[in-house]
């Protein structure tokens, strides 16, 4: 399954090569051209030069995670974080670097802690990875500074229609674009698989200057808070209610005219959709809509619970409906004059 | 069958904190006359009532003792200092009325404190019986005398509210079950235990002597259905509670299954109970000798260890019925 392959792979900001290779392999034979720019963004064209509106698609390849910051004399490893909440680290198994060295993140035994200590978060400084090495020298035989560290989290299907995986933000978006590019769309499309979204939307800053399209659709894995005790208005998105369309966030105001085009397509094709009910967060869309004197953008996202954790959860049906929706949108508005 | 609320009221209003169970024991024995094969009172004061049955030995335990106060000092002004018998929250005690075995009434008050919220502890509390001086006080009350909450037992169609529901209610359920019992498939020992509130002591000695294979304790448990309560499952009016765990025991699955089957087969309303703290006589039975397969039937009660312990009449009825059916069903 494509989404399993994409989420099992690892790609920290600035280190997206593994993801890029998978995408290139998947798209081989389905597109006209593939270009990797100096930052590592992968820019793909299909149906270039054919008649129709030129629609841009974008998703980011990078994910939140950790890397090896320092190996201590004791052989214990200190880590640096990208966008992770340190509170999710204790009591986990991690895998380090290309050799996939296993390690554990433990904590002080509960017997040695007081209640007020347990009420506070454990700080990153108090955490480390233990690979069983007894010295720095021994540890450095298999681990180097800068090595990627990821959670030992298997892609799992569970419950009703649910998927648990790491990095659904934004391999879900990558997967949607791949499926769209493999389909029989007829009009010109340029897809951008960005780097470094999680460290400040940086890959798309460069990509937006290179690619000039009539409009951009940005694909994301977005926040869901549809669990108790949250009230309906606090849920942001709800799993299973369909792809979420953005109205506003910290990086973009999505022009109503274009949002309406998307909802019209959804309704014509009986695809469920919902609106993203928060203004928080930011996406690569912000860079596209302010580039080249302005480009309209639409945000389509798959709702995910526990975003930025190794146990993110999405509903397969939302993902599949997002693919359907984007395809139908291109088929309709690509041909618009 | 309707719950005999007159009897319930009677057993709830007899004074008997831990170590002082003689009156309640006499009342229970008197009431059960004619319903048992034999009985004995052991060295600690447990009342062990035997009802013969065809099957393995089963001990039922409900404790007769209640929480209370013991006078430790009488000062020259006539104020009484006291030790607690069982666990109290000092905040709940301030302004509570108490009654001594000889009928003398008093009220618990607190010394003046700079910061009541921070400084309050039990040794800041005293009992005022309205005596004019130490000598007058000593004519009414002596050091070592015991008192309990003085509130009466209030019963209406749906609820009962009284101090000492913990655990006269357990005793009451056992008494009523014994009276209704036809042909038990267990050899039943109904044990009305002493000194539960100070550490399950009566259950520990009585179970050693009875040496049963199965044990069921009867007690109140906490109801979590009041505003902003933690999300534990027990609710007042939710049926008899079949305990899964508390701080003293992980109940035997065999006994839990037995209770559930009896409840389902006979359409008796029940709920499953998980309690974080707390303990019951089952904790003592479980680890006696080679181990006793133990369970608990409890009643979800609001405001436990206050003078307004409250539970639903319907839950009492369900608990009695469940007990009878379990004993008649057998292992």
């Amino acid at each position: 399954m494509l989404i399993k392959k994409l989420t099992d792979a690892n790609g920290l900001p600035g280190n997206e090569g593994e993801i890029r290779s998978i995408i290139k392999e998947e798209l081989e034979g389905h597109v006209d051209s593939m270009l990797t720019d100096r930052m590592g963004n992968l820019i793909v064209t299909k149906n270039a030069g054919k008649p129709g509106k030129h629609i841009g698609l974008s998703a980011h390849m990078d994910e939140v995670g950790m890397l090896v910051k320092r190996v201590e004399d004791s052989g214990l490893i200190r880590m640096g974080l990208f966008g992770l909440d340190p509170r999710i680290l204790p009591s986990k198994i991690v895998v380090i670097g290309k050799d996939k060295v296993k390690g554990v993140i433990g904590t002080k035994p509960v017997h040695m802690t007081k209640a007020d200590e347990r009420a506070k978060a454990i700080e990153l400084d108090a955490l480390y990875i233990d690979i069983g090495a007894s010295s720095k020298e021994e540890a450095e035989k298999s681990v180097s500074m800068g090595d990627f560290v990821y959670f030992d989290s298997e892609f799992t299907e569970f419950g009703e229609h649910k998927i648990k995986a790491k990095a659904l933000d934004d391999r879900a978006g990558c997967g949607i674009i791949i499926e769209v590019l493999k389909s029989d769309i007829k009009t010109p499309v340029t897809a951008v698989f960005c780097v470094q979204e999680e460290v400040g939307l940086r890959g798309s800053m460069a990509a937006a200057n290179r690619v000039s399209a009539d409009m951009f659709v940005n694909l994301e894995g977005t926040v869901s808070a549809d669990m108790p005790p949250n009230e309906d208005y606090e849920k942001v998105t709800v799993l299973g209610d369909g792809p979420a369309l953005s109205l506003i966030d910290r990086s973009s105001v999505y022009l109503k005219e274009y949002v309406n085009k998307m909802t019209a397509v959804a309704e014509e094709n009986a695809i469920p959709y919902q609106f993203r009910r928060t203004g928080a967060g930011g996406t690569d869309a912000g860079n596209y809509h302010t580039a080249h004197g302005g480009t309209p953008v639409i945000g389509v996202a798959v709702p995910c619970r526990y975003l930025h954790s190794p146990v993110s959860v999405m509903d397969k049906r939302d993902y599949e409906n997002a693919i359907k929706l984007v395809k139908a949108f291109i088929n309709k508005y690509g041909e618009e004059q | 069958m309707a719950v005999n609320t007159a009897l319930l009221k009677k057993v709830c209003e007899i004074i008997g904190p831990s170590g002082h169970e003689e009156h309640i024991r006499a009342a229970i024995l008197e009431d059960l006359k004619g319903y048992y094969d034999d009985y004995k009172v052991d060295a600690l004061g447990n009342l062990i009532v035997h009802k013969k049955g065809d099957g393995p030995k089963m001990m039922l335990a409900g404790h007769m003792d209640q929480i209370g106060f013991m006078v430790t000092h009488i000062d020259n002004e006539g104020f009484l200092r006291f030790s607690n018998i069982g666990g109290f929250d000092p905040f709940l005690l301030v302004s509570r009325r108490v009654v001594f075995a000889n009928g003398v009434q008093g009220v618990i008050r607190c010394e003046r404190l700079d910061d009541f919220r921070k400084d309050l502890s039990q040794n800041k509390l005293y009992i005022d019986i309205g005596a004019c001086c130490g000598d007058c006080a000593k004519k009414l009350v002596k050091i070592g005398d015991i008192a309990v909450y003085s509130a009466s037992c209030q019963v209406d169609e749906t609820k009962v509210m009284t101090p000492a529901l913990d655990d006269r209610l357990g005793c009451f359920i056992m008494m009523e079950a014994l009276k209704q019992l036809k042909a038990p498939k267990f050899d039943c020992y109904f044990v009305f235990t002493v000194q539960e509130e100070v550490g399950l002591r009566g259950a520990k000695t009585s179970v050693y002597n009875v040496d049963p294979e199965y044990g069921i304790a009867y007690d109140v448990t906490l109801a979590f259905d009041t505003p902003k309560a933690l999300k534990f499952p027990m609710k007042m009016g939710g049926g008899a509670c079949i305990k899964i765990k508390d701080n003293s025991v992980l109940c035997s699955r065999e006994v839990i299954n037995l209770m559930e089957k009896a409840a389902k087969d006979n359409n008796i309303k029940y709920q499953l109970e998980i309690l974080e703290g707390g303990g019951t006589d089952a904790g003592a039975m479980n680890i006696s000798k080679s181990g006793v397969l133990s369970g608990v039937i409890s009643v979800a009660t609001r405001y436990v260890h206050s003078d307004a312990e409250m539970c639903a009449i319907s839950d009492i009825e369900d608990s009695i019925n469940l007990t009878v059916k379990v004993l008649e069903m057998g292992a």
Partner: protein
Amino acid sequence: MDTKKFVMSICDASGVSGYESEAAGIIKDAFAEYCDEVSIDRLGNVVAVKKGKGKAKVAFFSHMDEIGLVVLGLDKNGFVRFHQIGGYDQRTLLCQEVVIHGYSGEKVFGVIGIKPPHLQEPGDAEKSVKMSDMLIDTGYSEEKLKELVRTGDIITIKRKMIELKNEAVSGKALDDRACVAAMYECAKLLKDYNHDADVYFVATTQEEVGSMGAIVSTYNIEPDIGVALDVGFAKTPELKPSQCTEFNKGPVIEYGPNIHPKVADMFKEAAKEEGIPFQLEVYTGNTGTDARVVQVSRSGIASGLLALPLKYMHTSVETISVKDLKATGRLLQAFVKHLNGKDLEETLCL
């Protein structure tokens, strides 16, 4: 079975206090290969006997129960509220994958979620999330979930043991199944050895909630010497030197009021005779182990306590050294050997 393979098989099994049957089954079968009798008592303890010449009874106790979680109830939309059996640090539970052992017989997968950084309020990051605010996401609708899961169902962290460098292994429930495996190692070593004492290997239940299993099994066996084996705190950066012992330096022989001094001395002598590495530690109060209840069973038992150093106790990444584990097994064998030809009455005289 290879001892490392055995410890992996029992640690991956589930056996929360009071619900040890899955682990107990594996343990019973494994010991049957090396012992004369294996039985399970009323509270679920597995008791394996390797007969000697009947001159004395020595019992080793290692608990097979693990800490775990229990379903409190179902919330809207397929979420599960839970509570604990035994003591977790709530901070080790976020984003764990779990298995709910449903009353339906079905094992239901779930994850314990966390509010994503995007939605957190200022100050949230400094506080830990309370267990009472955590939820397990099962991915099921409430209606479907009701058929699978209910109040009282046991929950375990989904974890398979892994191997680290230097013969270290990490997993859940190494507290105290690592010591069950040490007893297994001893049983293997004693297979063809003639010893005076009858040796009882007891995998106890409910240690994490008050050593209920050890209370009952000690009463039943009534041993002359009862030795508890439990994991101890191995050195990690957050512990003070006085709180821990060394990792990979052998088992720890404990001294203190909860331990019969002659029993501890004999362990020390036995270790020296056989050249087994060991460490010493003193416990000033009641140990939080089965030794606490073994000592005061019946009319008093000569009690001993060995500790196997373990890192990150009560997390799902508890870590021990297989070298320490095997040395502990060898020490138990050496102890049994050491008792040969000894008059216990005299040896244990205080």
